[in-house]
């Protein structure tokens, strides 16, 4: 595991990228979405920005990272760049450890690096299932930057209820039909 806990390992410019990801996480919170923010950096330029938009789109796969992936696809088309080689030079900055779905997607796209804030105890792509161990990706992953802050945002969200989830879920005894 290459998840370093030290903040100082990030350069000033990397810290500024992380700051930008936090702005999008806060925007998610303001919009009653799980507060995760993400930016994709290509040749030191931010080419995709995103936040969780699951409730807004009624689509549980619209995590910040997936929103950014779609923007990179557009970016590559617009600039007539080869999609594969763009992804291979992308550095991902995201406030929370990517979930199993997003981690697998980013590894398959062969992004260069992922820098995240706090761990994701519910769905994390290394905490809950070690996706790296299965896919053996080239991607370098490091976590722990402003972790407390990222976690505080999540806690703030989960204090209130997810407005889109069905009310008081009665425990259904094994789905027998």
């Amino acid at each position, binding site marked *: 595991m290459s998840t370093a806990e030290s903040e100082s390992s990030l350069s000033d410019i990397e810290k500024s990228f992380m700051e930008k990801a936090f702005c999008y996480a806060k925007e998610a919170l303001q919009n009653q979405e799980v507060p995760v923010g993400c930016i994709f950096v290509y040749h030191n330029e931010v080419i995709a920005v995103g936040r969780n938009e699951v409730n807004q789109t009624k*689509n549980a796969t619209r995590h910040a990272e997936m929103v950014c992936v*779609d923007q990179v*696809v557009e970016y590559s088309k617009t600039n007539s760049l080869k999609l594969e080689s763009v992804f291979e030079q992308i550095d991902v900055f995201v406030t929370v450890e990517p979930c*199993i*779905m997003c981690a*697998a*997607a980013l590894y398959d796209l062969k992004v260069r690096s992922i820098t995240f804030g706090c761990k994701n105890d519910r769905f994390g792509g290394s905490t809950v299932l070690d996706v790296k161990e*299965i896919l053996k990706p080239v991607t370098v992953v490091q976590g722990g930057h402003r972790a407390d802050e990222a976690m505080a945002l999540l806690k703030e969200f989960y204090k209130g209820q997810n407005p889109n989830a*069905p009310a008081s879920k009665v425990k259904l005894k094994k789905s027998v039909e």
Partner: protein
Amino acid sequence: MRSSKRIKLDKPEHSQKCLIPIISDDLIQDTPLIDVYVDTINDPKHISKVIIDLNSSLPILDLTHLKRVKGKDILLCPVDSIGIDQVHGLLKIKNFDTSYLQNNIRVVSVAKIPPKTRTQYNKVNKYWPCNFHSDKYIEKLVTNTLFSSEELCEHEKFMKMAVLLANYRKITYKDRKCVGSVVVDPKIKSIVAVGYSNALSNPCEHATMVSINNVAQTQLSNINDVPNKSKLNLSGIPEDIHTVLQDKFEGSCFGSTWFKDKSEIGQPSDGPYLCTGYYIYLTHEPCIMCSMALVHSRIKKVFYGINSSNGALGTLCKVHLLKDLNHHYEVFAGLCKSECEGLNIL
């Protein structure tokens, strides 16, 4: 694609064997065993007294699924760390009258945990009598008898639609990698959404992801916005595909029930909410990304045709069985296997 030939449904007898539930290893493997000390009771008349005495002086909390006696033999304690020559000493310390026993202590292997299936029970019960509460649903899963032949026919029909979609994509877009998928609401037996891999233009647009996007389309429009509320919502099925499927699968039902806002829902199960209660039929085993997307979307059952080298519902791992996740779905593999295998041939 335009052939007017209707797709004939095969007799389901042989396919029951092909449709394999992908279940947890602890339902398939033998129950783990543990070594325990046993002794023989001198006089059978004292059996019930010995059981009561021993249960109060030396209860075995981890092995409450086991009966204390087998014939005249009585279970004393797990082997754990104590030596065979120390057992009677321990019983005396616990104020148990060892004169009831023959002092013929042996080590036997017994079930370490309660058996989960009848097959497991039958095996471990021979070692030492054991309590067992059969779970009807689990029994149907492990014996692969969950579905009636009518239900199997239905599942095959939906999978054949997924195969058709994959072929449609293959021919229309000259795409080599063709995976098809169909999302069904089993409550109304209707096709809610469809998808096929679109990875040529977006590497993450696998068939599953496209289908989930299409399910979302059905929930973005509110019932209050539509004039004809008696009709089902068709926004999860592109028009061209609807036409093709209608033509080939006469009498099938298409569309989802209309999305209701939380405030309009009486019962939580009324939904629709994400893919809650829905089934997905996939020609190929989904990858990690797609399998986890189905967890997030709270799908109920996943049927796939053939394994994928990067598959996450049996091949590389079993995402649907990860204990720490907040949602779990059931997986069945091997549906219309030969048709799905045909998709891999160019």
